[in-house]
């Protein structure tokens, strides 16, 4: 029987029909099928938790085959089905080459859906016959907040797979801080708060080693996150006073009695942090060194996540434009990779008369550095690539 499935598609109607069919034909009372309509958010999901993933060949913002390739590398035992609107031999061959277990033409009628479900049933039956579900996979019910606190206190880097009766999601803890949380349809601090409330906080949790660091979406220290769980209602970042001062109604002097403790506990916003010395730079956060290799001298450098958002940088004069051009090149290089039938590019060097640029990609983002052609040497660029690799994890 299907334990946990995921449908990645941009077609809501099809997703709901397929979800209902999967649960009816392949599931039982314990089965759950998630639907994710946002391809970029899907990239943050942990595919290992799913028995089955149905993935559209063409997603709105992404090539489904590239996503398949990435997910298959992480979850080799998960069954992947590529769903295509325009099945042809080339697409079929590429899907299987990228790790699909089955290629499915999108069903367009009730009969077609039934036939598709029967085919999926056969695929899963073979899979489960060879890999029976172990009872210990379920695990005991435990208090999720305690698990988070334990790992944070220990300074761990772990991925917590959280499973309630109705939903499942992931909490990423990196070096003792909650970095990111996500479940299908929601991500960030809101997702973390929701997950803490699932089944009154008593859920099944599976801890896995963190193999990649996601883009940070939660910047509040874990002690505040967990403490604020006791407060009624969520604390949204933009509800905090912009200067870190206490909120007060005009003409009144705030007192500790009238100000909610949640405001008192809120950490200072980014605007309160001292800005690093730079030449007029505006950037979300300062880049720190997480490896042994020193950062070579660069004119500027920055990093975007896979949604094209600038997440850190130094000497970045026009953050939005820098993020845009990096994302643009990244997308174009992804197209090139598809045409050459290879994985994503590792790095790209662009040589110009005055400037040289180096882009280094991993599965969480792209780093981009600008060097001066006149004085930069090959060693500098190699050192930058090495430095980037060390920052990745």
């Amino acid at each position: 029987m299907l334990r946990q499935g995921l449908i990645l598609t941009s077609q809501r109607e099809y997703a709901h029909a397929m979800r209902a069919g999967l649960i009816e034909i392949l599931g039982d009372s314990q089965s759950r099928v998630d639907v994710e309509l946002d391809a970029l958010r899907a990239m943050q999901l942990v595919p290992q938790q799913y028995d089955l993933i149905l993935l559209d060949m063409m997603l709105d913002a992404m090539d489904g085959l590239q996503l398949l390739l990435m997910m298959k590398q992480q979850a080799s035992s998960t069954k992947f089905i590529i769903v295509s609107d325009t099945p042809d031999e080339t697409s079929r061959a590429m899907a299987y080459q990228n790790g699909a277990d089955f290629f499915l033409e999108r069903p367009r009628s009730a009969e077609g859906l039934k036939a598709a479900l029967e085919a999926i049933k056969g695929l899963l039956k073979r899979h489960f016959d060879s890999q029976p579900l172990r009872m210990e996979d379920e695990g005991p019910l435990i208090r999720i907040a305690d698990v988070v606190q334990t790992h944070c206190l220990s300074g761990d880097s772990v991925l917590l797979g959280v499973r309630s009766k109705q939903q499942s999601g992931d909490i990423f803890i990196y070096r003792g801080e909650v970095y990111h949380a996500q479940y299908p349809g929601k991500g960030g601090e809101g997702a973390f708060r929701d997950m803490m409330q699932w089944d009154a906080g008593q859920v099944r949790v599976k801890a896995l080693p963190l193999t990649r660091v996601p883009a940070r979406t939660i910047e509040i220290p874990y002690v505040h996150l967990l403490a604020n769980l006791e407060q009624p209602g969520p604390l949204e970042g933009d509800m905090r006073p912009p200067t870190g001062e206490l909120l007060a109604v005009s003409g009144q002097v705030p007192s500790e009695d009238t100000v909610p403790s949640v405001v008192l506990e809120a950490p200072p916003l980014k605007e309160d942090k001292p800005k690093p010395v730079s030449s007029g730079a505006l950037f979300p956060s300062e880049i720190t060194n997480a490896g042994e290799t020193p950062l070579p001298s660069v004119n500027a450098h920055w990093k975007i996540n896979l949604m094209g958002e600038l997440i850190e940088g130094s000497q970045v004069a026009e953050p939005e434009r820098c993020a845009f051009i990096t994302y643009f090149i990244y997308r174009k290089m992804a197209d090139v990779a598809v045409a050459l039938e290879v994985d994503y590019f590792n790095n790209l060097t662009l040589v110009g008369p005055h400037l040289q640029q180096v882009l280094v990609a991993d599965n969480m983002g792209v780093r981009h550095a600008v060097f001066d052609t006149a004085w930069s040497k090959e060693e500098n660029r190699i050192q930058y690539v090495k430095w980037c690799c060390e920052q990745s994890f």
Partner: protein
Amino acid sequence: MNKAFEQIALIPGLIAAAFVSNEGKPGAWCANSVISPESLSFVAETCRVILSANRAEQRPAHTGIAAFGNRTLVFRESEAGLFVAYLDSPVNEAVLDWLWAQVKPHFESEGIKWE
């Protein structure tokens, strides 16, 4: 141009190469693998777009080196068009210099100069 690419195809480690004009017209190509000329044209056109976007950002570039694992895509723009070479190895500056030394004479025999 086809004669030039007959010779370029003999360069050791070269999987495929192509040349497209600045108008985007495919000039010539060669491949010792199952890479179609359409794919090569698409790759070349995409590389040209990347270089063009960098010009627009006031960071003009004429050469690109993209690493895909152990394979490398090299592209270089001239006034006549864009040359792309797909190699079955990583490259460094010495390898690049060697590659241009191999390629240049064939293009020069076709009247195309690289600077």
